[in-house]
């Protein structure tokens, strides 16, 4: 996948690209609207991460231009403005998703993956986790043939950890992913602990799950050996 990051805050653009490159996503950078407009016209991107607050350009116009030229790129809007009208207008113009600053990089990855799944209709293969098998498409967790009954939140947690496997996710990152920004002010690290505890309990009823690790002081991680 290749992505154009349109962001006037250089250091943020660089951090995003550093993170995405680690996940094998090719990144191109544009620090202003004119630059971005040119690059979108010339190159074929799968994704455009678009900051609406550009100094020289109304970010929404970039989407309009791209649509006029039958550009197939998916737009994910990033903005600190976060005003509701912007969000609605952006989505109306055909943006695929919307992220308010500041966001977790892992959340960005999860959104890109979700849009990619919809867009390319890729069927992700089943993921093997010790004695468990996770099927992302059907949102099912199986253990030697029997389904482990998980709540929506528990599966979301598992999926998010899995997407960022072998990386530590902080409780706040997990919380944000599951509860979104609207309940941000009620963030309570206990919430995630309780759900992880419940998830572990359910897993342990079927088989031990040593791959779900607690990283002391930081958060949680799923560790699996990647077979390449």
């Amino acid at each position, binding site marked *: 996948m290749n992505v154009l990051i349109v962001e006037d*805050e250089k*250091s*943020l653009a660089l*951090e*995003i690209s*550093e*993170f995405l490159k*680690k996940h094998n996503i090719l990144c191109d950078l544009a620090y202003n609207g004119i630059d971005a407009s040119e690059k979108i016209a010339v190159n074929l991107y799968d994704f455009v991460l678009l900051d609406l*607050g550009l100094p020289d350009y109304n970010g929404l116009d970039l989407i309009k231009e791209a649509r006029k030229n039958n550009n197939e790129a998916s737009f994910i809007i990033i903005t*600190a*403005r*976060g*005003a*509701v*009208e912007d969000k609605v207008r952006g989505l109306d113009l055909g943006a695929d998703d919307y992220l*308010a*600053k*500041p*966001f*977790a*990089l*892992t959340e960005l990855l999860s959104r890109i993956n979700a849009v990619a799944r919809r867009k390319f209709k890729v069927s992700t293969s089943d993921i093997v986790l010790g004695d468990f098998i996770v099927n992302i498409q059907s949102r099912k967790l199986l253990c030697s043939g029997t389904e482990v009954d998980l709540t929506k*939140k528990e599966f979301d947690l598992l999926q998010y950890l899995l997407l960022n496997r072998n*990386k*530590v996710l*902080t409780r*706040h*990152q997990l919380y944000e992913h599951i509860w979104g*920004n*609207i*309940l*941000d*002010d*009620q*963030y*309570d*690290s*206990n*919430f995630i602990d*309780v*759900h992880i*505890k*419940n998830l572990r309990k359910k897993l342990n009823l079927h088989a031990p799950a040593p791959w779900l690790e607690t*990283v*002391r*002081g*930081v*958060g949680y991680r799923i560790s699996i050996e990647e077979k390449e």
Partner: protein
Amino acid sequence: MKLKLKLALFNLLSKLAFAGLFLLLMPYIVERINLRHIDNELILKREQVISLISEIGIEPFITSDSADAFGSFNILKEEFVSLEKTSLTEDVNQIEVASRLIDDEEIDYRVLNYSFMVDGQTFLLEVGKSLSSILFAEQNIRHIVLLFLIFIVTITFFVDVLYNNLLLRPLHSIIKKLKKIPDPALFDKTPVRTSTSDFRRLDSALTELMENINSLFRKEKEITVNISHELLTPVSVLRSKLENLLLREDMDEEIQNKIEESLKTLHRLQTLVNSLLMIARIESHQYLREDTFSIKEVLQDIIMEIKPIAEDSGITLRKEITDELQYSKANRSLIFSMFYNVLNNSVKNTPSLGEILVKCNRLHGNFNVEISDNGIGMTEMQKSRLFSRFKMKDKSSSDGTGIGLAIAKTIADFHKIEVSVTSEPSKGTKFSFIFPGNS
């Protein structure tokens, strides 16, 4: 006391005072007028008698052989004239009130005494007029005047009240305009219709004042929104940098923990800024209110969210949802957030083995949601600043900014939902949400 009532009372009292004074003075004045009138009449009579005597002499009245006195009165004893010889040396010419015995009847008369000399003999002339008819007339007049005054006072009082009402109507509409507004932005700017310049000035001054306040509020909100935006970008940069650092595999545990600590602090900043932004946005009506949804479902969703947390802390979460409301012209995610914040607050303030009850019913036509717990409760002081921003009840809890209830209150105000809290230390707290009647 209302201005209208005060004016009416003053009106009534002043009228009664004037009427009373008039009633008090009237007999005296009327008497004086009557007496003067009678006196003039008596003097006229005297002149007539004197001129008659000078014409025909004294003899027809008093002969030397007959009695020394002459008297004449009409049948009704209204008037009399008497003439008698007297031995008085000094001149007499006076008018007085005196009673006279006529035919065994004592009658009050206004009597004129006049002495004159004829042929070296002094005579005393008395002309009298009865006062009884006058007294009678005076009484009648007094009754009539009293009735008239009562009539006038009553009529003018009611007319005054009506006119005052008419006159003060613009003032009432101004007061009504002021009463209706929880927010200066909602002040009705249409001028009150009146020909009274004072009210016009009051109305325009108020409108101007409201506009000023409103523009100040708007500026304050704009500043909040702008500052928040400006803060969010650097927070975003810092956050991405720290998160990227955390992904490095060559880090020892200590550095990892330090980064996580920094991230936590950053999250607190982010949460704070976002909360302020959210409140400012709600208050400046940036959220749309066009969802229609079931309150029951929202509550059930929230209970499902919170249940694992509550159960983990050993708290029983019960629901008694007897009535349902299809809430329209509202913002679902805001309403969700409102109830969620309050319920979450209850969970945080209820110790293990406590109980939280979510109740939902219709009272007096109003839809009503209650969230009550038997947790630690609050003192009056804590309660009074419950909804104010950044005043956490318990500083020991590291999570959250204590702004959740302030947000809940802002959301409730935005939807015109009435929130009330009853609480007692160590007994528990109850939040009631009364939805507007027409919803």
